[in-house]
């Protein structure tokens, strides 16, 4: 995912990508047929990457320049992003693994395969490669119980925000909200006064609430209310966020907003793309999102009101909780890993070879080649910004090249941003960067980020469903507080207690 894309694409992205038929039978067959990737025999570097958009030509100037830069041919297996997790499983079952596989998250497939020996543990192997060594905290968060089965791909550490319709705020003479209480006040004003001239829902939230652990807007809000981000310390023990009263307070807040008609009634089923559409068409004035949406939203408004798109968006950043303190929701600091196969990279020497190339690819020059292509051919620089050359840009619509999935940039991205099309956009970007810096100081980090519990790997998806469902049911008013607490208890008795004790054991060992 490029940094301009929203982070929590989550299962909804693949929700409409279907898998028909029996899982087991399909796998058994697929194991024999997959032949992509290829080993190191031909001297090429084989990588498997998720594809967003259209794959660049393997014979294009950008890739040729890249191959010349690393002194190796590059053999990319592109897999459409929606099918990526399935393809990973199938590839793992085959006997021809690419040398470098992008793993999108610490899911069961990745963790269990890595622990069975599919990927190199890089914990002591990266010191020689300065571009592959990152911030110690993120490295720790990206590890799996002390092992590092891949090079993490750096992402902006702070992205959560609340966005408001700036023109509506102006019309009603309201300030950009600072706290969750302000958010409610503004929602009340929006719904009552109808500054857009039509009925609107106030705050817009999507179906993401039904899945716990997506780093979704619901979880931003919970943390703003003071709940831990994933796991937190309470009374000397690590507890999951939903065991805290603050977490429940956030649900109560949303439930009362929903009861008072300040939250879209169909929040349980609203698809995220439809949520964006409603915001653009004035059917709601507040969203909780990742801050890149400030730019994408204003671009959409720009189409309706050329040149003035940016004036429709007020970016508030992380909101202050009811306790008067700001608890900001950070990203994990990375998004996925570049994992190196032990099957196709057999010896330490071969590993050094691959790491050396990756190190080179993540230099400033390498990142530029991967993300933007060749200067003068694919893009030109204009001050600190880049401008894609029409007809030769490596990514569709002026975004980064799909090859930038190979960028780890452990110390942070050095690639320039695209030139803002209007001063309004420039102001929005500046505001975003300012808020990121402000909120990073109050970031609430996941206390169990580097820990993976065995039971969670085995049962996590089914268990977390209980939490997601309970959250939605409570906000929708289908269950009361007693029912909600019973559901949380069900999580604990159905296997959650084991997860809690495993996480606490692991944390003491570290």
């Amino acid at each position: 995912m490029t940094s301009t894309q929203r982070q929590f694409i989550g299962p909804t992205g693949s929700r409409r990508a279907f898998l028909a038929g029996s899982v087991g039978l399909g796998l058994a067959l697929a194991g024999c047929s997959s032949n992509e990737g290829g080993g190191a025999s031909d001297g090429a570097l084989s990588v498997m990457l998720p594809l967003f958009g259209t794959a660049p030509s393997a014979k294009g100037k950008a890739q040729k320049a890249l191959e010349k830069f690393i002194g190796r041919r590059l053999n990319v297996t592109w897999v459409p992003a929606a099918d990526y997790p399935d393809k990973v499983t199938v590839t793992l079952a085959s006997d021809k693994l690419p040398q470098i596989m992008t793993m999108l998250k610490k899911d069961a497939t990745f963790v269990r395969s890595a622990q069975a020996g599919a990927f190199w543990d890089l914990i002591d192997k990266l010191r020689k490669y300065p571009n592959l060594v990152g911030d110690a905290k993120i490295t720790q968060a990206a590890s799996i119980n002390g092992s590092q089965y891949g090079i993490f791909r750096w992402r902006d550490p702070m992205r959560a925000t609340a966005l408001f319709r700036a023109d509506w705020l102006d019309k009603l003479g309201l300030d950009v909200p600072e706290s969750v209480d302000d958010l409610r006040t503004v929602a009340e004003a929006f719904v009552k006064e109808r500054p857009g001239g039509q009925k609107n829902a106030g705050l817009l939230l999507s179906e993401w609430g039904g899945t716990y652990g997506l780093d979704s807007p619901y979880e931003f809000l919970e943390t703003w209310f003071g709940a831990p981000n994933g796991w937190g310390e309470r009374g000397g023990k690590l507890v999951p966020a939903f065991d805290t009263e603050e977490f429940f307070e956030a649900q109560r807040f949303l439930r009362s907003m929903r009861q008072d008609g300040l939250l879209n009634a169909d929040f349980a089923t609203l698809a995220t793309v439809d949520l964006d559409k409603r915001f653009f068409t004035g059917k709601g004035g507040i969203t909780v999102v990742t801050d890149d949406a400030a730019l994408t939203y204003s671009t959409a408004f720009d189409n309706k009101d050329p040149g003035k798109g940016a004036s429709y968006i007020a970016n508030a950043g992380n909101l202050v909780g009811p306790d008067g303190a700001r608890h900001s929701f950070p990203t994990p600091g990375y998004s996925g890993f570049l994992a190196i196969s032990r099957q196709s990279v057999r010896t330490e020497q071969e590993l050094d070879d691959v790491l050396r190339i990756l190190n080179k690819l993540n230099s400033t020059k390498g990142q530029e080649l991967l993300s933007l292509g060749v200067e003068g051919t694919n893009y030109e620089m204009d001050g600190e910004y880049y401008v894609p050359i029409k007809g030769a840009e490596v990514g569709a619509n002026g975004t980064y090249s799909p090859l930038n999935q190979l960028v780890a940039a452990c110390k942070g991205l050095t690639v320039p941003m695209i030139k803002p099309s209007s001063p309004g956009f420039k102001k929005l970007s500046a505001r975003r960067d300012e808020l990121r810096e402000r909120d990073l100081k109050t970031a609430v980090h996941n206390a169990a980020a580097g820990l993976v519990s065995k039971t969670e790997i085995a049962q996590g998806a089914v268990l977390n469903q209980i939490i997601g469902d309970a959250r939605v049911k409570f906000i929708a008013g289908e269950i009361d507080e007693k029912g909600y607490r019973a559901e949380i208890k069900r999580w604990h008795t159905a296997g959650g207690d084991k997860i809690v004790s495993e996480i606490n054991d692991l944390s003491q060992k570290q």
Partner: protein
Amino acid sequence: MTGTSVSSTQIAPPETPPPTAKAPLRARARRYRWLYLLLLPGVLYFLIFRYLPMFGLVIAFQDYLPFLGISGSPWVGFQHFEELFSSPDFPRIMGNTLFLAALNILIVFPAPIIVALMLNELRVQVVKRSIQSLIYIPHFLSWTIVASLTYLLFALDIGAVTSFVNDLTGGNVAFLTDPDWFRPLIILQSLWKATGWGTIIYLAALTSVDPNLYEAAKLDGANRWQQMWHVTLPAIASTVVVMAILSMGNFLDTGFEQIYLMINSLNRPVAEVFDTYVYSLGIEQGSFSYSTAVGMFKAVIGVALVFGSNWIARRFGQRGLF
């Protein structure tokens, strides 16, 4: 057909008498070798694409990990099955699956028969044909489109049907999230999508009914209703039985795509069925072995139901499937 015309195909030369069952296998194989050759592609197809993959089912008895493969994954015996039957989710999912399956058999299965009988009564061929064509078009739409249409019509606040119903009754029904409305919506979708297509086979069976039978019945004073009951229905009964037995094999297949698209946090208690459960376990949680065990359990039930219903059909004097 005369003997000479057949002999040119080398299949049954009339000069040699047909071998009895006692003739040695080799002689019979030699004699019918071309027929066996014709059979070969079909047999190979089933062996390679239907039977060979069944070996993959061994992962239901393993703790399968794709990276280790079938040969490298450890054996766990019946552990996954024990887990399934003792799981607190099992009764609920089994109940939901059976409920939907029963509704399918009771409502969705007879619908094409009724529609076919109604179409059969139409006199004007043009009307009959156009209705037939129009009602089977939905069959060609994917479930994604059907679900999108449902969302458009039934969404809260903005759905046409929801607004209409709620404005009319003054109620506040949320069709898409109300657990009580989940099954009716699923059945409605199935009816809309499958009924027209299903009528084709019954209409074909209806064309084979001998018109003389109707004439005879009319002479005996049978009215339209009695003609349908005593002539038409017995004539298509064997088709109905075969279709019923075949559908029993898919009894527990409640349609993954259809349900997955309609499921949400609020209707999950009634919506979760084996297909969606296997998906979240197998794909989202990576428990391939467990989900294969669940799938296998479902398949075994399906086989049992096919044999069972076939046996019943034969007991009631119908020809059955085999």
